C-alpha cells in the first residue's frame, strides 16, 4: 500500500500499537493520520485522501459505528477499506459493523497474523 493510513482510537497507546503491528505485518504506508474519535476522523477525511482506515468502536463523542454511518457522505472516503479493531466481537456487533460498511473486523488482542489475514487482502483487492 502506498498512501496514508488513518488510525481512529481514543487510546493513544492503541493507535501506536496498531501502527506498530501494521508495520510488522509489512503493510507499508507513506504517512499516518491519527484521530481520537469519530468527529476528528471525519474532519481529517474531509481534507485528506487515505488508503486505509483502522477504527475502534468504543470511543467518546462519536463511536466507530456512528463514524461508519457518517463516512458514507465523505467523497474522499468512498471505496476506502475500513477495518474495525475492537474488544467487542459479539455476532450482532460484527454484523452491524459490516452492514454499516466495515470491510474487516479484528478483535483485540490481535497479532501480526491477524493483520496479515484481515488487512492485507483488502489492500490487494
Amino acid at each position, binding site marked *: 500500500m502506498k498512501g496514508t493510513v488513518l488510525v481512529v482510537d481514543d487510546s493513544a497507546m492503541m493507535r501506536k*500499537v496498531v501502527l506498530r503491528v501494521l508495520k510488522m505485518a509489512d503493510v507499508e504506508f507513506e504517512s499516518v493520520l491519527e484521530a481520537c474519535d469519530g468527529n476528528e476522523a471525519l474532519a481529517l477525511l474531509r481534507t485528506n485522501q487515505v488508503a486505509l482506515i483502522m477504527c475502534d468502536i468504543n470511543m467518546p463523542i462519536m463511536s466507530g459505528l456512528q463514524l461508519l454511518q457518517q463516512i458514507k457522505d465523505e467523497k474522499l472516503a468512498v471505496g476506502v477499506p475500513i477495518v474495525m479493531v475492537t474488544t467487542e466481537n459479539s455476532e450482532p*456487533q460484527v454484523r452491524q459493523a459490516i452492514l454499516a460498511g466495515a470491510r474487516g473486523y479484528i478483535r483485540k488482542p490481535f497479532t501480526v497474523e491477524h493483520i496479515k489475514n484481515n488487512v492485507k487482502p483488502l489492500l490487494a483487492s
Partner: protein
Amino acid sequence: MSITSVKPKAYRADEFLSSHNLDRADATVTEIFNLMFGFEIKVIESAADGEIQAECDERTAVVGFSGAMRGSCQIRTTTCAARSIASAMLGGIPIDAEDDSTNDALGELCNMLAGGWKNGVPELSSECALSPPTVIAGRSYKVHVSKPSVNFSRAYRFNSHTLFLTLYREESSLFRA
C-alpha cells in the same frame, strides 16, 4: 401507538459466581498476555505470593459494565508492572515513569480483559456494554464500591510482577428478583 423497550435479561449472581467465569477470566488474561505482550502469566493460588510491595506506587484501572449486568472489571498492579506492560505493548521501548503511556496501557489492558471476559459469557456478549477505562494512581488509596455487590478475584504473576483482577457484579433494584 405504544412503544415498548426490551430490557436485557439480568445476569444472576449465582451465574456470575460460577467456576466457568473464573476459568474465562484466567483464559482471557492468558490470551492477552501471551498475544499482546509475549509474557508468560500464571495464576497465584496463595494470596501472600501476590502481595504488592509496599514501597511501590500502585495503579488501578476500572472498566464499568452496564446492560444485562452492572458492575466493573478492576485490575491493580504496581507502577513498575504497568510500565513493563506499556513497554511490551510498544515493542519493548523504555517508558519513563511519568509517561502517560503507562496509564493508557493499563486502561487498555483493563478494557481488553473486561471485553474478552464478557464476550465469553453468552448471556452478556451482546447484552452488556463497557465504559471507557479510568486509571487511578498513588499510594494507600481504596477503590470503594458503593452498591451492594458480589465479586471474585484472581491474582496472577508475570515477569516477577503481580496483577490482581477483580470482577464485580452490582446488586441493582432494577434486577432484584
